[in-house]
């Protein structure tokens, strides 16, 4: 039935003035209501197929997931203020870090940018009215909610204690209830596949007339590359967690050597998904940064193709590096060498991006808004996190670092320093477009600075802890690690405060913020050529892509039509 939706879409931009006129048949008013107010009522929201509304519902969901995962993190850091037993039993602690990982990875990081900003912006950046499969889009939201509910039910029911990595054979003999959490992860994966499939189809089929691949905004390339990974890799995750759940429930022995199974097989299956998954988390963040930089420096990307192709390069090479998680797991030395070398190539693609962003600033006309401060934080944190990725991909150095806090700090630099920073940058950047209101700039700058400071105080000590030899997932630790742990916990509190502050002023701005013009940043991006907030069908007049999204060397395209009421 969804197929019936497809054909009209590519055709619709063709007839000259279809967009402004059609809906709202009753009244003579030619202006179209914006998508927030077009159809009021809870029911119309819950059954909507509008990609913008679904994006907002995802925004609420992933924000709740972030709060939940963040709460677990605060509890963990509070426990770690004390070297010995405190606050909770070891088993409770083990459940907490498992849930922190599962919630943050599968419920926040993976859907955060694609399902919210990808959903909102991708059709607008292509000049389309909606995604290719709007109902699948809505279904993906409910599948996500189902997966999240299953995971949370498993949590209330006792919670798994295996870590988010579910390593066998521990996960198959754990005294906790692994199955509901594993099944929840499986269902969340289904949602992720649906989202990815939709984006791929939309990018291929629904580009507006005249929009060629090399005219698309970089964000679309990033989301496209992400979607490819989601569609290809996620089934393997589903396979791996299903086998673990079966092993746990029925003792099938797939990963039990006593029954002829192999625990290292699980590690291969798991990382075949979960290494590309870190690119699912970081590629969209890179896409966001690639939009923020030209907008606030009013300058064309210094190399469009470098940014576009490096996303595809990361997506492709990212599939071939999973073995670098297994350097001390007992894989052959030849394998370790090959996986180590391939990992270096992923790093090069990331370096290309950083270099391109920075050189884009050269001879620009830069304004310093909150998204730009987040960009600065991102460059520093991502570059440092990425370079430490080179360090841990160096086989001999990984031997002492593997499974210590060094690795914890490394991936939090990428995941929090990279993805969360870009997520915050994105929400400030697109906030006027999504809600038609401005956020308070001064509060934005202050909280961005606090996020940056809190982040560094949290995770720089963890690099040193890893050097000193503190393994991860440690309930109690030798006293010599005490000071660094306290510093890290204090940083975590600062980071949490900054995030709560951000949430508070954004919520206040929803109602009391100044009204946003259609294009407050003076961007040339396609999505800014529509009113803020956009009408249900995205554009008042069909998008004309002849003037590209980064054409800051030419006069701006025609002014956006006046904001509708």
């Amino acid at each position, binding site marked *: 039935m969804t197929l019936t939706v497809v054909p009209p879409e590519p055709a619709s931009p063709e007839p000259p003035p279809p967009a402004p006129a059609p809906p709202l048949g009753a009244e003579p008013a030619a202006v179209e209501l914006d998508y927030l107010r077009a159809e009021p009522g809870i029911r119309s929201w819950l059954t909507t197929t509008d990609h913008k509304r679904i994006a907002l519902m995802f925004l609420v969901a992933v924000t709740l997931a972030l709060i939940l995962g963040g709460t677990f993190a605060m509890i963990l850091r509070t426990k770690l203020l004390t070297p010995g037993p405190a606050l909770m039993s070891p088993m409770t602690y083990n459940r907490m870090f498992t849930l922190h990982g599962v919630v943050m990875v599968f419920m926040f990081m993976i859907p955060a940018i694609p399902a919210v900003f990808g959903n909102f912006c991708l059709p607008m950046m292509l000049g389309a009215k909606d995604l290719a499969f709007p109902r699948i889009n809505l279904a993906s939201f409910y599948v996500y909610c189902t997966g999240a509910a299953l995971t949370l039910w498993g949590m209330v029911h006792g919670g798994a204690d295996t870590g988010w990595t579910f390593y066998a*054979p*521990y996960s198959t003999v754990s005294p906790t209830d692994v199955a509901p959490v594993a099944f929840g992860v499986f269902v969340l994966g289904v949602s992720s596949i649906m989202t990815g499939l939709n984006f791929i189809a939309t990018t291929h089929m629904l580009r507006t007339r005249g929009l060629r691949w090399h005219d698309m905004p970089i964000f679309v390339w990033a989301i496209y590359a992400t979607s490819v990974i989601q569609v290809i890799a996620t089934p393997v995750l589903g396979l791996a967690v299903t086998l673990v759940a079966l092993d746990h429930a029925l003792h099938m022995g797939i990963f039990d050597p006593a029954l002829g199974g192999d625990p290292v097989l699980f590690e291969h299956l798991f990382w075949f998904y979960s290494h590309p998954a870190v690119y699912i988390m970081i590629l969209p963040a890179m896409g966001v940064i690639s939009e923020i930089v030209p907008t606030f420096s009013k300058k064309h990307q210094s190399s469009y193709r470098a940014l576009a192709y490096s996303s595809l390069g990361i997506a492709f090479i990212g599939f071939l590096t999973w073995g670098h998680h297994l350097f001390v797991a007992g894989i052959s030395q030849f394998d370790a060498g090959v996986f180590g070398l391939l990992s270096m190539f992923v*790093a090069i693609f990331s370096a290309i991006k950083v270099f391109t962003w920075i050189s884009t600033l050269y*001879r620009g*006309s830069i304004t310093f808004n909150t998204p730009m401060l987040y960009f600065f934080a991102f460059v520093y944190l991502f570059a440092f996190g990425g370079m430490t990725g080179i360090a841990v991909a160096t086989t001999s150095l990984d*031997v002492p670092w593997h*499974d210590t806090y060094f690795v914890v700090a490394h991936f939090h630099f990428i995941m929090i320093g990279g993805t969360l920073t870009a997520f915050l940058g994105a929400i400030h950047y697109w906030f006027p477009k999504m809600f038609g209101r401005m956020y308070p700039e001064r509060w934005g700058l202050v909280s961005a600075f606090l996020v940056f400071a809190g982040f560094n105080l949290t995770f720089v000590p963890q690099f040193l802890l890893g050097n000193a*030899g503190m393994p991860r997932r440690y309930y109690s630790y030798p006293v010599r690690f005490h000071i660094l742990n306290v510093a890290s916990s204090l940083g975590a509190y600062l980071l949490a405060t900054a995030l709560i502050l951000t949430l508070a002023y954004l919520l206040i701005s929803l109602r009391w913020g100044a009204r946003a013009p259609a294009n407050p940043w003076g961007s040339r991006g396609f999505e800014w050529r529509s009113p803020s907030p956009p009408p249900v069908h995205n554009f008042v007049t069909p998008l004309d892509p002849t003037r590209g999204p980064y054409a800051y060397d030419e006069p701006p395209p025609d002014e956006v039509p006046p904001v509708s009421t």
Partner: protein
Amino acid sequence: MNELLRNALALPPQSSSIAREIDTLHYTVILTTIAGVTIAALVTAVFLIRYRRRSAAIPLTPRVILPIWLEVVVFGGLLAMFCAWWLVGFIQYRKIQNPPPDAMPIYVTAKQWMWKFAYPSGPTSTDVLVVPVGRPVKLIMTSRDVIHSFYVPQFRIKQDVVPGRALTAWFEAIEPGTSEILCAEYCGARHSLMRGQVVALTGDDYARWLDAARAPLVLPGAKGDGHGLAERGRQVAADRGCLRCHSLDGSAFIGPTWAGVFGQRRRTADGGEVLIDEAYLTQSMMEPRAVIAAGFPAVMPSYQGVLTPEETSAILELIRSLREVSPAQVVPPPAVPLEFREAPAAGPGPGRAAGVVPGSVPGGAR
């Protein structure tokens, strides 16, 4: 320079033959990282300031396309640097992975949550690995339950210990002293307490330790010539399975050691103290859950009706005969593990002693 950087980066002492060269690569990579990131951040900051907008109107900006030669030079250079690190790292990795042919083998069995070491010449030990200085030691490791990871930060080595496989690691201690063993792969409730230590002894000391450990158990302070009641107690303890959990050489195990405890006062799990005498020991055999030694799980079954009164006496005499065996006489004191085992005594709450049902200690169950 080495010491300065080592301390600045919070690295532990370099106690093995390979630690120094791994650290040298570590310094190179990390200092380059810091320099590279600093340059990137500085250039960004300079651009942000130098090219800030000075007018209210939005000016047109030039489309500057990076010349291809610049990209090739920058990324070719970076890739060459990364590959050089990879090459050096891989050569070191091969060295870490391949034990020298003359390495002395020691068998390691990991289980939740302890390390057991078996020497080809006979002796075994738990959580304390005694090795000679200056001689490569090859560990042949397997696990009895889940994946563990043998990690000695001071040696810069780590190797996962996987059930169903025998994986090897090797090291050569370069000076006498102790180094901490940590489990680096999450393995369940007491993962963070699965610690031990490597005790490196000079050649002479090691030979002495090995002789003592290998000799038939004529313990200092044991009465008679090995045929007395204490010797009978040793036989009973072996037959009845006591020695599966209690050691006679001072090393802590699932249960407390029997060496050097008689007549001492020890802390109990509920925060009190108890004098270890015949009465307490007999109660511990017959009603083991009544008073638990601090830092140990309450997993011992009752021997009421299992041990005859004569056997009970023999065990008491054995423990009494061991009262002057201090752990120090057998192996240097395992400072770190003991610190941990005593930690929970401060509060009777969670810790080694509480919350463990017998079935959850596979060591006991299997």
